């Protein structure tokens, strides 16, 4: 605390990425640019770690007075938690970017969105929320724009829809309450609702608009169409931040609407119940569940690493939304935990894909194979990420998913819990493919001279891999943090052991069992199994002729039977639906233009005559 005076904590966290990003853009030289960028990304994480004591026990406030309105920022335990996750992924991203990007442009806009995310997490009033939200969206949009115009257009349109609905909601709140501060606004709104000053429909509308705005960023299913393209067609190092943290800004928005503003929270009770569940949250839970299932199925069917990871990202954020919708202490605690673990393992995944693309220049599964020998460290990281995503015990991903599952069972939502399981199984299906197709098996001959990922990228991966293991073995650490700002109903027995009302998870013993098991399996593998090295030229198709059209190698069309089974459902695509909608709109506009603004003088005189006729009839009658 002595190192950084309290007054500087928030401004340093907020603005150092942006300032250093601008500097990196200005001094666009090799090394200088990278060093500046890494410094800019390192400042928030350092400052936030130093401010941990103060932030977790009290609050640090900061106000910018622009003259017209005041921007309030507060660092309390909730915002510290989110901001710290963001900053951690941010520094990893900075390391990744210093090896994958050679442009000041990338540094400027990625660090700009970094600042935006920090602002969103720390904001305590709607103006600053909106400003930083837009800064964040703008930065990420520029990153996509550079790579793919079409995808950036999709992202832009949906972001604009989200931004406008947020602006509208903020305006509606302001019109009734006259304040933009979260706490004040929500109290006033609650009071007004009770006194009848605000109709129920009005509050419902505000709520729906906020959900739309945040749902776009989080990528809830009908609004997710931007995500695969925007995540995929991007600098993969930046995507680790984009998918790991920016989607969490959407989640954070859900948390704001659910918990920070109790008046909106109150409307759940007003909306009534459905089969014993509050209707409002039940809808959110199902939105999350649908997101999980749809995105996971789509992820399984992808043939491109980036697409797979992108859909997986959408699906994993679906878990968080689902858990928030389940709406009891354990599930929300699990959601918070999953925010952490998803940021860690998905950031790690994207950095790995960045390394793969940097070193091989390929993105499709069919072009990969046998890279474990060539990139051993990256492979180790990938193993951690895969285990964590698939929810294998000693990793963070297991702890958080377990909590969510417990919460869903406690809330008597078996179907929702079932979707969690289904999602987990599908996640296993696609990460197995990622693991096997990329790292094992036959290596295409053009990948023979692939080298290990560059050092900065490895540093970034390590930064993200360590928390995966630490919080997996010691979930109590994270739960203790979460308990500071939210009463999760989860007891922390020790660092290694957490208990919910229905069960206990002792990570250490699980880990020990796992290690013992692995050791036995390793011994069997080394001494018992009849393993031999297969030459590259050896075929392993079991004597079957390899035909192109039904080539079910794990690298190519591995899940085609699944795709054929799902044929009926795959006909319905949100992407196509939106495209058709856009085409319809365009046709309609064309028709209008052709029909009315048609360049025919006579038509115009007819319009004039008809207007005169209307006036005449109006005047005469």
């Amino acid at each position: 605390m002595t190192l950084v005076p309290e007054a500087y904590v928030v401004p340093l966290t907020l603005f150092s990425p942006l300032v250093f990003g601008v500097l990196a853009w200005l001094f666009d030289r090799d090394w200088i640019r990278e060093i500046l960028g890494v410094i800019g990304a390192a400042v928030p994480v350092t400052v936030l770690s130093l401010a941990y004591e103060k932030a977790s026990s009290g609050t640090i406030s900061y106000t910018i007075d622009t003259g017209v309105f005041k921007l309030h920022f507060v660092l309390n335990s909730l915002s510290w938690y989110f901001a710290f996750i963001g900053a951690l992924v941010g520094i990893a991203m900075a390391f990744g970017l210093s090896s994958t990007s050679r442009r000041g442009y990338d540094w400027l806009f990625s660090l700009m969105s970094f600042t935006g995310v920090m602002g969103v997490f720390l904001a305590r009033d709607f103006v600053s929320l909106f400003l930083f939200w837009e800064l964040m969206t703008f930065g990420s949009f520029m990153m996509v724009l550079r790579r793919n115009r079409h995808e950036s257009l999709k992202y832009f349109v949906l972001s604009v829809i989200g931004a406008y609905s947020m602006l509208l909601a903020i305006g509606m709140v302001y019109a009734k309450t006259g304040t933009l501060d979260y706490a004040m606004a929500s109290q006033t709104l609650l009071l007004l609702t009770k006194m009848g000053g605000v109709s129920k429909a009005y509050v419902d509308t505000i709520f729906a608009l906020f959900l739309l705005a945040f749902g776009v960023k989080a990528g809830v299913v009908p609004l997710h169409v931007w995500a695969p393209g925007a995540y995929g067609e991007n600098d993969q190092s930046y995507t680790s931040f984009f998918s790991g943290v920016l989607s969490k800004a959407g989640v954070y928005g859900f948390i704001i609407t659910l918990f920070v503003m109790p008046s909106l929270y109150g409307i759940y009770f007003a909306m009534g119940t459905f089969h014993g569940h509050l209707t409002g949250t039940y809808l959110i839970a199902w939105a999350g569940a649908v997101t999980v299932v749809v995105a996971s199925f789509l992820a399984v069917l992808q043939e491109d690493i980036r697409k797979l990871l992108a859909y997986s990202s959408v699906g994993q954020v679906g878990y968080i939304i689902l858990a928030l919708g389940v709406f009891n202490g354990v599930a929300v605690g699990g959601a918070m935990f999953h925010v952490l673990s998803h940021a860690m393992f998905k950031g790690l995944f994207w950095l790995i894909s960045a390394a793969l693309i940097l070193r091989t220049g390929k993105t499709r599964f069919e072009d990969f194979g046998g890279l474990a020998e060539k990139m051993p460290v990256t492979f180790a990281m990938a193993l951690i990420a895969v285990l964590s995503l698939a929810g294998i015990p000693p990793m963070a991903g297991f702890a958080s998913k377990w909590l969510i599952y417990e919460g869903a069972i406690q809330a008597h939502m078996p179907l929702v819990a079932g979707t969690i399981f289904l999602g987990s199984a599908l996640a296993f299906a696609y990460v197995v493919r990622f693991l096997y197709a990329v790292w094992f098996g036959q290596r295409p001959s053009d990948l023979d001279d692939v080298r290990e990922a560059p050092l900065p990228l490895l540093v970034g991966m390590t930064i993200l891999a360590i928390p995966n293991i630490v919080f997996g073995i010691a979930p109590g650490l994270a739960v203790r943090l979460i308990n500071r700002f939210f009463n999760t109903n989860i007891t922390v027995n020790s660092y290694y052991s957490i208990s919910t009302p229905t069960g206990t998870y002792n990570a250490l013993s699980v880990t020990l069992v796992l290690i013992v098991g692995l050791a036995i399996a390793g011994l069997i593998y080394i001494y018992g199994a009849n393993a031999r090295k297969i030459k590259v030229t050896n075929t392993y198709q079991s004597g079957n002729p390899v035909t192109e059209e039904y080539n079910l190698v794990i690298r190519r069309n591995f899940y085609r039977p699944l795709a054929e089974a799902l044929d009926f459902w795959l006909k319905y695509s949100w992407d196509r639906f939106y495209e058709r909608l856009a085409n319809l709109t365009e046709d309609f506009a064309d028709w209008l233009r052709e029909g009315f603004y048609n360049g025919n003088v006579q038509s115009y005189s007819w319009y004039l005559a008809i207007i005169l006729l209307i006036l005449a009839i109006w005047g005469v009658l």
Partner: protein
Amino acid sequence: MVSVLKRSLAIITLLIIGYWLAQGLAGVPFGQDRMLVGKYYLENVKAQTGAVNAVTAIVVNYRGFDTLGEVTVLFIASTGVGALLWRRKKKRTAKTEGSVVLRTGSELLFPFILMFGTYIFIHGHLTPGGGFPGGATIATAFLILYMAFVDYEIPHRLFEPLEGLAGMGYVLVGLIGLAIGSYFLFDWIWQTWHWGAANLGRLFSGGFIPVIYTLIGLKVGTELSGIVDSMLTEEVRE
């Protein structure tokens, strides 16, 4: 068939609009005294401008600035015609010569029509007419020549400078007014010098109205004949 439908729809629409307009006009009874500004002009026209014809006085004197604007519009329109129909090589393409009667008649009448036009614009402040009808009459004289003779063309070399000079002269007269009096188009001949005050109702009276109307007459005459010329000459294709 559709055309009949369209026609009948147009007729019905127009009948309704016409009924509406007629009802509006019924509030403006025909032939009754509703003069407001006109009364002032009529009462003061002799003393203030020295003109007998109130219409000319209004056009040139009271609302002289508007007239300048209208002359500008005229100029732009005639320039526009010239620009739109401009071709690299232009020539008249009439094939049949006018009949003997027309040729002789036009030759005979041309100076008289010219003189009549001049008369009209010079006597603008006394008799009906003025620069605009006078100029149009002059243009008609040239039109008759165009019709009578296959290869007749106006003397461009004379007309184009004349057109410009007439316009400049108008502005110049106004600027002199600005210098002598206090505003643009101040009637300096009448107001300052009282020139012609003694013989009101005769030719040498009316302040600067005859001067300006002469300029307008020249300008309108040259411009309208220029329009006729532009429309009659076509591109020559080799």
